[in-house]
């Protein structure tokens, strides 16, 4: 398998990373090298093998549906690029 330039650009768009034509070309070369390595997996028969998502076979814990966190909005918004009146500012989304 090898990725086309168009596919590289499409993935970059899916990942919301702007990519120039030059970068896409270099990236295509690197990704195809990496996928050559990854392709070794395809020769393995894994029929009937349960996928392993996690090292420990434990289920998610549940907790009481109660407020446990204190309000630290000011501290958390102090590190934001742009805020106003306790809100995060982004470019206009809805006209």
């Amino acid at each position, binding site marked *: 398998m090898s990725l086309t330039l168009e596919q590289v650009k499409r993935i970059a768009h899916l*990942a919301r990373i702007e990519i120039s034509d030059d970068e896409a070309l270099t990236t295509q070369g690197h990704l195809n090298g*990496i996928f050559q390595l990854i392709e*070794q997996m*395809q020769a393995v028969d894994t029929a009937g093998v349960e996928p392993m998502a996690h090292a*420990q076979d434990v289920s998610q814990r549940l907790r009481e549906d109660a407020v446990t966190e204190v309000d*630290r909005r000011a501290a958390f918004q102090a590190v934001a*690029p742009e805020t106003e009146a306790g809100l995060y500012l982004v470019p*206009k989304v809805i006209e």
Partner: protein
Amino acid sequence: MINKSLKELAQALAAKQISSVELSTLFLDRIVRLNPDINAFVTVDREKTLAMARAADARIAAGTAGPLTGIPVAQKDIFCAEGWTTTCGSKMLANFVSPYDATVIRKMHSEAGMVSLGKTNMDEFAMGSSNETSYFGQVKNPWDRTRVPGGSSGGSAAAVAARLAPAATGTDTGGSIRQPAALCNLTGLKPTYGVVSRYGMIAFASSLDQGGPMAASAEDCALLLNTMVGFDERDSTSLNRPVDDYARDLDKPLNGLRIGLPKEFFGEGCDAEVMAAVRAAIAEYEKLGASCVEVSLPNSHLSVPAYYVIAPAEASSNLSRFDGVRYGYRAPEYGNLDDMYMKTRAQGFGAEVKRRILIGAYVLSHGYYDAYYLQAQRIRRLIANDFVEAFKSCDVIMGPTSPSTAFKLGEKAADPVQMYLSDIYTIAVNLAGLPGMSIPCGFVGGLPVGLQLVGNYFAESQLLNVAHRYQQATDWHARRPGAID
């Protein structure tokens, strides 16, 4: 004083031979003098460090000190520490001052009373094996400053090797504690997945990431690990089990220990002189009463391919949070919201991080998920099962940590695949979630060689015991790089 073990430093502090302020100043002064060249630290804050040291001295005076109160430690810059810049080696977080503490930071500093010397350099978002992907520049290996210290915890490794810190923390997703420990002549331990809390540890691949200690000896690692572990309800995969004293079994004799030698780790692909040092270490273990048995990890050759599907898939999801809205970098100029995301991420992430995000986005995308992501998870199961089988006939598995000694700065930087293959012996351990260590076992051409020890689940105490007994019989771990000062 700078070469003393953590136990010796604790004794000196308890006996009032030195105060924590004096001890911390010794290391801070070394950092000022030597860090401009080695670049192991990205953030140092003398006033903060000395304030922590004064608080530790007060605890010691009041008789409320713990075993490591007042001892300085370097923190990998992946751990959020309140009031400290926490960059994860990335431009994306270059100006991020964390508003909260990671659990590991809280335990080591607020609870144990250790003193932070600062934040150490690392590969960007822990993605790398040479520390060369850091936005803050390469780190030099104190054993040979034309070579890499390994990665991703390269700053931590170089800091301890150059004695800019007595010990440090690292994190290990595919070998990031063990490989730099090997390349810098340190002892490093990656615990069983779930033993050390991931809360506040900036996520790379959440099903693999695990924090752990890096230090000059197994004994130091045991003492550090004691301060790091414990159940944490803020980490959804933290394991709720009784807390061990990892120093308790250090001195147990090794008589009857069964060492498993995976034939796949002793074949082609490893430098011959590195292999000779590893075999000599195993012979030393036989003198200490251990016996060897051949085992097999037949799917281990698939660990690098499976890892480079699973880790990027998790990374692409984890790193979607860096969008220029709530924290971190935002592009200075942009059009609409989408354009802001695209430019922020294009400018804020380095090349390796972008590559892995793209791999992840691809293997998770419609039409490829089964062929790549699910197949990788099935292979992960096969790899984990191989270890289960192997541990039926042995107590601990040994082999090389890295196929070579420290390589030259720039040598593999342009070829991602060659770089990925430097973690060929460490990655399977993360996929299985097992504990692993690297300990110094010799030198090739003046460069350190690491021996990897892999234990069964929750066998940290045993691994530390196995490492400690070897370090009682040999002095590789006590060697220091010359011409540092």
